[in-house]
């Protein structure tokens, strides 16, 4: 089996336009979660919270004039992927066909889709914009980034509730092990959209001042995965090793946010087993915890079960500050690799991601 390393990462989040800023603000306990005000959403009962990026420029990575035709998610992806490739020191020229891109998403295309539907309904089907339609597909961000950077290896978008970013990593590992690429940019991208936000608000799943729940967020976070042979041959500095992963699903309704501690623990153990890492060797866990009390409690119980006999590792719950969506799971992958880069004595870092519909993926990184 090929050894796979992380040799770079990047993040565009509601806390910052890059990974270092995002990490520093998270370390300082800063939150991106804020009320969506009535000035935007209209008057309604108990307004909900979101972690939004707000004004955003693609410059210097892409000229503003060129970015104007792109949806928000594609803009985030272009910036994050460009920065990630640069961070890894990867030369694209001559390596285009050896480079892949895999992004997860839960929401890419939402903005163009709502706009296109509005044009068809309010104006007429004939006046709906042909320039908008291509960006309604979820694979637009990865493909726009691929076109921009000339990435010609595997190009995949995976839609899943929250664990989609980890799913991209999970599939990327097979592609790298099979020799389909030497390097893959893997992560997730999301776009916050007012229409969707208000709908979910009315469905009662989002956090409000009086109700526990999660806050949706947006952005794009990615890690640069590379075979060890490739990284060594070009003398790249490895941040972390992708040691193992596990993917599972509990058979529940697709919208159900439900988790049983036993199931969650079993998947965590499967990931550690796949990585050949003992629980005692884990120095940090990025938990899935996103503010849904019963799921967070189930995860906490599972962590206590898995790590209970060893000294408990540090547990970080960044989604409470950065918001929830597949892009947050991908941010945790980037933070996990960064943590091992800065402190290899952590040994191993686990990222856990639980989603509605019983989906769970866990990944294990170790010091390179």
């Amino acid at each position, binding site marked *: 089996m090929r050894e796979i390393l992380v040799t770079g990462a990047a993040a565009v989040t509601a806390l910052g336009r890059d990974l270092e800023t995002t990490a520093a603000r998270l370390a300082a306990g800063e939150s991106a979660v804020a009320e969506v005000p009535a000035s935007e959403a209209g008057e309604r009962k108990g307004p909900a919270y979101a972690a939004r990026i707000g004004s955003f420029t693609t410059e210097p990575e892409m000229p503003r004039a060129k970015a104007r035709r792109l949806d928000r998610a594609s803009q985030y992806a272009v910036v994050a992927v460009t920065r990630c490739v640069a961070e890894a020191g990867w030369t694209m020229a001559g390596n285009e066909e050896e480079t892949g891109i895999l992004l997860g998403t839960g929401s890419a295309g939402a903005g163009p889709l709502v706009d296109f539907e509005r044009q068809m309904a309010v104006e007429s089907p004939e006046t709906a914009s042909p320039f908008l339609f291509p960006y309604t597909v979820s694979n637009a961000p*990865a493909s726009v980034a691929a076109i921009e950077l000339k*990435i010609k290896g595997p190009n995949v978008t995976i839609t899943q509730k929250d664990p989609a970013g980890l799913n991209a990593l999970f599939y990327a590992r097979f592609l790298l092990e099979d020799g389909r690429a030497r390097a893959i940019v893997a992560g997730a991208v999301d776009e916050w959209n007012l229409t969707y936000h208000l709908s979910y608000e009315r469905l009662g799943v989002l956090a409000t001042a009086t109700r526990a729940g999660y806050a949706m967020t947006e952005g794009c976070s990615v890690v640069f995965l590379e075979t060890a042979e490739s990284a060594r041959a070009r003398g790249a500095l490895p941040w972390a090793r992708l040691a193992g992963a596990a993917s599972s699903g509990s058979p529940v309704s697709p919208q159900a946010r439900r988790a049983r501690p036993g199931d969650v623990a079993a998947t965590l153990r499967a990931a550690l087993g796949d990585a050949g890492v003992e629980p005692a060797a884990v120095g940090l866990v990025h938990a899935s915890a996103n503010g849904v009390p019963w799921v967070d409690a189930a995860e906490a119980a599972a962590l206590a079960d898995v790590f209970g006999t060893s000294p408990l590792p540090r547990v970080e719950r960044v989604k409470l500050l950065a918001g929830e969506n597949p892009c947050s799971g991908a941010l945790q992958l980037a933070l996990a690799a960064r943590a091992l880069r800065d402190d290899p004595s952590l040994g191993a870092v686990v990222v856990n991601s639980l989603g509605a519909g019983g989906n769970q993926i866990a990944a294990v990184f170790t010091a390179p």
Partner: protein
Amino acid sequence: MSERTVVVTGLGAVSSLGNDLASTWAGLVAGRSGIGPITLFDASGFRTKLAAEVPQLPDCGVPSRLRRRLSRTDVIGLAAAREALADSGLDLDLDREDPGRIGVVLGGGVSGLLDSEGYFRDLLAKGPRGARPTRILNHPPDQTTDRIAEVWGFRGPRATITTACSSSSTSLGYAADLIRAGMADVVVTGGADSFARLTHGGFNALRACDPEPCRPFDRNRKGLTIGEASGILVFEEEGRARRRGATIRARFLGYGITSDAHHMTQPEPSGEAGARTIRACLRSARLNPGDVDYVNAHGTATVQNDPAETLSIKLALGERARQICVSSNKSMLGHCLCSAGAIEAVATVRTIETGVVPPTIHYVEPDPECDLDVVPNTAREHPVRVALSNSFAFGGNSTVVAFGRA
């Protein structure tokens, strides 16, 4: 990766030609068109008023309290999965099967969009009080994947590939990789996608829809016709399938997956990008061009796709391209978008099993730029040991899969 190999032990289909595998296949072999006037919404404002709709939704075998909550895509996906699982002969008593070793990987995209569109329209016309937000609950493309796992109690890995028109071909690749890597023994794979205003309106806005039924590879083709379908394949680790005495319909030999990095909506015109994907597939499947007997073409009938695809096949297969059949199921099923690769994979497996190649119908005038043997209008008996199925998508996401005789 290891030498675990992947076989197809179950097939299921729902399409405009019929609500099961037998009727869909019979329609394809008979060269019957599933294309007709749009009934699911008022199409009067659109340039193209035709689609390949599933005429009557099948019984997907779930209790009515669950049935009420399903989208059109879920219903056809569950019905095709039900048929495929029955076909596989798997013992679905999960006390005997390990549910953690059975995964679900589908291609999807439209999902419950038809309902969401109703919600968006109500929102615009009547404001929030006049619109029921529960109508968007089926909107996420991974709904059908989760529903299949829910209904049968599967606990293995799941994924939903959303790379537009190559989604479900890529899902086959992911599913096979899960088995080969030892992460699952059985994966329910393929895809389901149904009709909606957005996709029809979008391709109309791009002037990519033919006002007449689509005519792949014909000189006067004017674009695609949108269809809807579900094709489900049960992939299984070969040793396990043999031990339990399963009927093996075909082998999944491998796949190629690449990015054109050319344009969001246009294919790369020299054919080199598509050829690269075909070559990657041959490499993955350890095949030579001379091994290929049939190509189930992407064959959308857009002005740009068909000549570019013809060039790709010629570049990748060389002389062999002239000796084989290349037909487009889309001439009958329409372009089923995110489930196109799945329903066409199902048809490809049936072609290998029966030695009958479905035709490309509505074919009148040859196009010198599409000069392969496209099996015009009438099915043909042609022994097929190895077949490829091409899928090329918006964004330059290209996937080619290879199946071989059991």
